[in-house]
């Protein structure tokens, strides 16, 4: 069995995992994977978070990608980072930069085991703010300025690729270089609020090719979170594992402790368990029926006979799921255009809706009290209805 096959059958512990600490966020990005905005009252307490880290240490998980929501808005965020790194669990966290002031930047620069990813989805405020909201470009740049001033070289500038920023690839690279940061480009997924915006935002077929060629020319200089393996048929694999790691070598823990197969698949269908259950995270990882299924050899379905199957492996499970495509068929961004054809055949709005939504409500929610009683002392709740419904 090849090493890649061994990985596809799943490891005893994840290599790394994504941990969304809170659904609270100061921004409301239109493509948010986790539909974040408001805190969930059931979010894990500090003591519960520490138990998760203890489990990760026992399992020798190398590092966690902490995200949200905006993880730094949790008041115990730094305490948790310290707890993880002092328990041999490395931390990489994604932030929009809102809490990265001078003090935080100095603190981060002093640690060998903490890495930072600043999210920015355009090289200019105009392109970024259209997706991440007004003022978000300035927030990110200010955080980057603090990191540079503190001497934190090599932090990550993390960009979700859209139709509007693929034309800025060189500018984004130059921006990262000017901060001695490393550029990280990832794929736009139709997950969370992205389900609504993906059709308009995802790169065109021509842009996908442009992106692939650009990445291919830069090799390991640019990180991708292994998110473009569906483009490998254009000319060979980009650096990375090039496989779907969902439930096999990665997973997601959400703010309330639910464990999903991957960060792009927050839906009942991909829910493996909860860290609050008996046996905690270890038991979920090792005994979940869903994960066992994801680790079972797959037939490859409709893609099996395609000559490119060995390089793209059928693409991203979550991208297929949330666009309403069968999981054993082509990726919606299949380089041969097969996904696009399938999407057109399925028609609009074929995809399932995300199971959880913590988006902030826009403005006050209008409350309808109902109609006034027909008579001052009428206690019959149906009073007046019958007459009205006849009319």
């Amino acid at each position, binding site marked *: 069995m090849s090493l890649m096959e061994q990985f596809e059958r799943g490891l005893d512990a994840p290599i790394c995992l994504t941990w969304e600490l809170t659904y609270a966020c100061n921004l409301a990005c239109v493509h948010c994977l986790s539909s974040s905005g408001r805190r969930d009252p059931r979010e894990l307490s500090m003591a519960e978070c520490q138990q998760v880290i203890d489990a990760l240490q026992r399992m020798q998980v*190398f590092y966690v990608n902490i995200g949200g929501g905006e993880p730094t808005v949790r008041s115990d965020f730094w305490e948790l980072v310290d707890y993880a790194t002092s328990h041999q669990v490395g931390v990489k966290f994604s932030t929009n930069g809102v809490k990265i002031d001078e003090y935080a930047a100095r603190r981060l620069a002093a640690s060998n085991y903490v890495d930072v990813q600043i999210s920015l989805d355009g090289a200019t405020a105009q392109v970024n703010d259209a997706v991440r909201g007004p003022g978000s470009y300035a927030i990110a740049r200010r955080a980057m300025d603090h990191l540079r001033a503190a001497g934190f070289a090599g932090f990550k500038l993390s960009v979700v690729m859209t139709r509007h920023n693929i034309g800025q690839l060189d500018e984004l690279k130059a921006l990262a270089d000017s901060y001695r940061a490393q550029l990280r480009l990832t794929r736009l997924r139709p997950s969370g609020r992205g389900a609504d915006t993906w059709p308009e935002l995802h790169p065109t077929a021509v842009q996908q090719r442009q992106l692939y060629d650009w990445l291919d020319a830069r090799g390991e200089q640019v990180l991708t979170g292994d998110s473009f393996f569906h483009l490998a048929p254009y000319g060979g694999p980009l650096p990375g594992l090039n496989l779907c790691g969902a439930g096999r070598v990665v997973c997601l823990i959400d703010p309330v402790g639910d464990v999903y197969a991957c960060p792009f698949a927050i839906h009942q269908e991909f829910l493996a368990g909860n860290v609050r259950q008996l046996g905690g995270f270890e038991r979920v990882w090792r005994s979940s029926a869903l994960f066992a299924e994801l680790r079972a050899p797959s037939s490859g379905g409709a893609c099996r006979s395609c000559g490119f199957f060995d390089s793209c492996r059928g693409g991203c499970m979550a991208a297929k799921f949330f666009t309403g495509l069968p999981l054993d068929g082509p990726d919606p961004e299949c380089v041969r255009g097969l996904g696009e054809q399938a999407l057109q055949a399925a028609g609009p709005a074929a995809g399932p809706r995300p199971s959880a939504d913590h988006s902030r409500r826009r403005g006050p929610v209008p409350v309808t009290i109902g109609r006034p009683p027909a008579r001052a002392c009428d206690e019959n709740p149906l009073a007046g209805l019958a007459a009205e419904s006849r009319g």
Partner: protein
Amino acid sequence: MSTDVPASWRAGAPGGPAAGFDLDRPWRLDDRVAVRPEPFGALLYHFGTRRLSFLKNTTVLEVIRSLGDHPSVRSACAAAGIGPAALPAYERALATLAESHMIREWPVSEGRVS
């Protein structure tokens, strides 16, 4: 997925000559490297470079774990039962690990590499 590990599936596989890697020098596992044994060998993760590597069998795991007890890589390999015929393959695997800074020549110069 979300692993930013520029891992190479080819790590440890037969490849070109092991330039700059001297079997007769002492080498050590870098102290920022975490080693996780796996049924197929082991996973190595370097916290400094954030790079992942694979050890494709348990013998090479035994070798890198014992490097600290040996004056040279050659003697560590011999102690792990690697005969002359198999040695070149292990030399290439270890040279790959040296290239990605998972193991470092000893004694290393003072001062940390960031």
